[in-house]
C-alpha cells in the first residue's frame, strides 16, 4: 500500500461592514488532515477536522479501499520543496482598527454613498507528503477587500462594487480607487454601440468547463476535436498559474501533490488550444499531461477543478492596445452561454473609458457575442486593468453586440 497526506491549516479574520459601519469581526480557525491510501489502482480516503491521530487516519483510509474506487497511484518520488509567503498583509490584531479607519475615511470622502460587505485576511499553511519520499509545504497570506457601494438616493440593493484579493494594503490607494468610480458615477452618458468592450477575464470562466479533460474527451462540448488547433486570436494566452505568492493564496502544488514545470501550465498559447485541465485520474486515463488542477473538498476523491486558471495579460498597456474610448463593464449579473458558444451578459453598470480613466456611466444593456468571435476575430487584447492601482486583474478587450 502507498499513501499520501494533505494537512491544511487556515486562519481567517473577517470584518463585516454594514451601513457604512464596522459591525462585526469573525475568527475562523480550521485544521484538516486528509489521508489517501492506494493499492491495486484503488483509492481509499479518510479525513478529520481538528487535531487527529494520523496513524488512525491512515488506517481508516486503508479500510476505505474496500469501496473499490478505481484511481491510479503514480505518486511523485523523492521531491521536496517549501515556500513561505506568510508575512501578513495586515496583522490580525490590527485588522478591526484598520477597517474602521478605512470606513471612516470613505464616509468622510464620499458622504453620498453607503459602504458594506467584507474585508478578510487569510493565512494558510498546507503540507503534502507521500510514501514515496515527497514532501511539499506552502505558507501564504492575503487580504480580500470586497466592498459594495450604494448611492444614498438609489433604490437598488447595490450600485457598484470595489475590491480584489491582494498581497499588500495601502489605505490611500483604496480611497483613491473608489474615488475613480464615484467621481464620475453621476455623470450619465449615452452609449456608443461600436466601441470595444472591456470585461474582466473572469467573466469568461463560463467556457472553462469545456476544457476539463473528461468533458473534452467525451467528444461533447464546445472545443471537441480542437486540441492542437488555433481557435482564438494569436494574442490570447490562458494558463494554470500555481506560482507561489499569487494573490489567491494557491499553493504551488495541487490537492494531490502535482507540481508544474515553472509552476504553470499552458491551456491556450497564441490562440492554440494546447492543454486540458486534468487531475491524476484523467491524466492517466487519457494519456494527458498533469495540469495541476486536482481539487478535493475535505474527504473527497480528487477531481479536476478550474483553480489557478487565468488569462495572461499581454505586454501592451490597456489604454495603448485599445487606443481610444471603450465601454468598461463594472457590474454584471448572471450571464451564460448556449451550447453553441453564444454568450449573453446583462450589464448592470458600465463606464465610458478613455486613456486609462473612467469618464462617466452608461445606461444598462446586455452584451452578446459568440465565444469564438469574442476571443477570435473580435479580440483586441488581454491587459492588466489600468484604471485602478489596488486591483490586480486582467481585462479582455473585444467587440460585442450591444443590446440596449
Amino acid at each position, binding site marked *: 500500500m502507498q499513501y499520501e497526506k494533505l494537512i491544511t491549516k487556515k486562519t481567517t479574520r473577517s470584518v463585516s461592514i454594514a451601513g457604512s459601519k464596522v459591525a462585526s*469581526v469573525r475568527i475562523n480557525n480550521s485544521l484538516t488532515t486528509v489521508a489517501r491510501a492506494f493499492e491495486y489502482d484503488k483509492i481509499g480516503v479518510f479525513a478529520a477536522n481538528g487535531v487527529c491521530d494520523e496513524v488512525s487516519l491512515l488506517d481508516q483510509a486503508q479500510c476505505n479501499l474496500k469501496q473499490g474506487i478505481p484511481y491510479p497511484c503514480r505518486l511523485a518520488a523523492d521531491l521536496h520543496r517549501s515556500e513561505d509567503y506568510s508575512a501578513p498583509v495586515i496583522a490580525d490584531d490590527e485588522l478591526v482598527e484598520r477597517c474602521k479607519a478605512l470606513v471612516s475615511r470613505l464616509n468622510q470622502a464620499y458622504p453620498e454613498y453607503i459602504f458594506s460587505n467584507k474585508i478578510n485576511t487569510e493565512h494558510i499553511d498546507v503540507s503534502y507528503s507521500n510514501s514515496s519520499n515527497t514532501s511539499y509545504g506552502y505558507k501564504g497570506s492575503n487580504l480580500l477587500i470586497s466592498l459594495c457601494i450604494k448611492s*444614498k438616493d438609489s433604490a437598488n440593493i447595490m450600485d457598484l462594487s470595489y475590491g480584489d484579493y491582494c498581497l499588500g494594503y495601502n489605505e490611500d490607494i483604496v480611497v483613491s480607487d473608489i474615488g475613480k468610480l464615484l467621481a464620475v458615477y453621476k455623470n450619465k452618458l449615452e452609449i456608443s454601440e461600436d466601441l470595444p468592450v472591456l470585461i474582466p477575464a473572469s467573466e469568461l470562466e463560463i467556457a472553462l468547463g469545456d476544457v476539463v479533460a473528461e468533458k473534452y474527451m467525451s467528444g461533447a462540448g464546445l472545443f471537441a476535436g480542437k486540441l492542437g488547433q488555433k481557435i482564438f486570436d494569436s494574442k490570447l494566452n490562458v494558463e494554470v498559474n500555481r506560482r507561489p505568492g499569487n494573490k489567491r493564496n494557491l499553493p504551488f502544488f495541487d490537492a494531490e501533490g502535482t507540481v508544474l514545470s515553472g509552476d504553470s501550465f499552458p491551456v491556450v498559447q497564441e490562440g492554440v488550444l494546447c492543454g486540458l485541465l486534468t487531475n491524476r485520474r484523467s491524466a492517466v486515463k487519457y494519456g494527458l499531461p498533469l495540469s495541476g488542477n486536482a481539487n478535493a473538498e475535505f474527504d473527497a476523491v480528487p477531481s479536476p477543478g478550474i483553480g489557478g486558471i487565468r488569462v495572461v495579460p499581454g505586454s501592451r498597456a490597456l489604454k495603448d492596445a485599445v487606443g481610444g474610448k471603450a465601454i468598461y463593464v463594472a457590474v454584471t449579473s448572471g450571464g451564460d452561454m448556449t451550447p453553441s458558444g453564444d454568450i*449573453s451578459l446583462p450589464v448592470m453598470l458600465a463606464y465610458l473609458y478613455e486613456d486609462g480613466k473612467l469618464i462617466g456611466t452608461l445606461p444598462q444593456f446586455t452584451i452578446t457575442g459568440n465565444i469564438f468571435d469574442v476571443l477570435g476575430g473580435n479580440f483586441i487584447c488581454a491587459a492588466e486593468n489600468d484604471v485602478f492601482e489596488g486591483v490586480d486583474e486582467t481585462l479582455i478587450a473585444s467587440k460585442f453586440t450591444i443590446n440596449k
Partner: protein
Amino acid sequence: MVRFRQGYYADVRIEDRFTTTVRYRNGSLEECRSSSVKKAFIRVYDGDMWYYSSTDNVDDIQGELNKLYAVATANFHVYGDLVIQKLQVHDKTRLRFAENCVKDIPVERKRAVLAEHFAPFAANEHVKMSSALYSDRYSLYEFYSSKGSKIKYDYQLCGAVFNATLSDGTNSFDNRCDFIAQNFEDLAVTDEAVSDMIAEGDNFMLNAKPVVPGEYPVILSPEVAGVFAHESFGHKSESDFMIGDETMRKEWTIGKAVGSEMLSIYDSGLVEGSGYVPYDDEGTLAGKVYLIKNGVLSGRLHSASTAVDLNEEVTGNARAINCGYEPIVRMTSTIIEAGDKTKEELFAGVSHGYFIKTYKHGSGMSTFTIAPALAYEIVDGKIGSPVKIAVVCGNVFETLNLIDGLSNEVVVHSSVTGGCGKMEQFPLNVAFGGPYVSISKMNVS
C-alpha cells in the same frame, strides 16, 4: 453546557452534519464517502459590535467563548439593547428525522439507487458521458443563548441527480433530472424518468435553434417561476440591504403596490424540503411571511438586527450556510401562490413566445437574470421547437407588473446540489416554487 458571562449577550450554535456522496461517471464509481463534521459557531455582543468565532474544537467551546469575551467590552445594560430584546427564547426539541435517519441506511443501498438506473444511458447512441450522483445530509442542530434558549432540531434531505452529456459530433447538450426526498425510503428513481430526460435532451441537442434576441412573452415552469420569485423579489426582501438606508425604506414602504394584483409571494421555513428551517440561526421560530400579497408589498425578511433597524418583527430568516459563518438575512422556501387558470389556458394566451422549462442558474439585483437549460418556442398556444437561450432577464419591478396569468397548481422545487449564494456564503439550502407563470414581456437573448 457553557457558562455565559454577565455583561454580554452570547449564543452558541452547534451543527453535527452527516453527509453521503456517491458519484459514478460512465457507470464507473468515482466517489463513495460518508462524513460527519461537528462544528460550533459562537457569537458575543456587547451592544456595539458582534464578535464571532467558528471552531471545530467542540470540546472547548467555553475556551472560544472566553476568547471573545476578552476582546469585547463588558456592558451591563446589553440586555436592554433593542437587538437583544428582539431575540426569542425557546426551550424546545424538535427531532423529526432521527427515526428515519439516512445515517442508518447502508451505503450499498445508496449506491444501488444510482447503479440500478444506468441502462437508459446505454440505450442512446448520442450519450457521450453520463454521471449519477447520490447525496444526502442529516444535520443535528443545537442552539444555546445567554437569554435562556435551548433548542435542538434536525434537518434531512436526500436525492439523486442523473446527467447526460449528448453529442452528435456537431451539436452537444447537457441535460439532467433529479429526485428528492426527505426520507430515503421515499426516494423514487425510475428508469422511465431517466429515459425521458435523455430523450428530451437528445431532441434539444438535435433540434434547438438559436433565438433572435428581443422582447417576447414568456411562460415560466413552476421550477423556473420559483427561481424567478427568489431572484426577482426574494433577494430584494432581505432587509440587511436596507440598513442605514432612508431611500430604500421610502421605496419599500409596506402597502406599496409593486406588482400585478394576481401576484402573491411568501417565504416560509416550515415548508417541507430543502428550505425547511424550523428555527433560524439566532433561535427564532419560523413562520410564514408574505412578501407580496395581491400585488402589494406586505413584508420582508429579518434578522434581529434588521428587525430593530426597520422597527419590525423577526421572521426566522437569519441563516448561515454552516458553522463557519455568521447568520445573515436569507430566504428559506420562497413560493408564488397559485392563480386560477389551467396550464392549457395560460399557454393558449400566447401566439408567439417562449416557454422556459428548466434553468441552470439565476441571479438578482435591480435586474434579475435566469439562464435557461431547456427552453421551447410557443406558437399559437402550443409548445413548439426547442430554442437555445443564454439568458432571460428583466427589471424587477417592471416584470412583476407584467405578470398576466398564473396556473392553478403550485409545485415546490427542492435541491440536494447547489443552493443560494449571497456574498461569501454559498451554497445555502433553500427551496422555491410556484405555478406556471405567464409574463407578457421579457428580454430574451
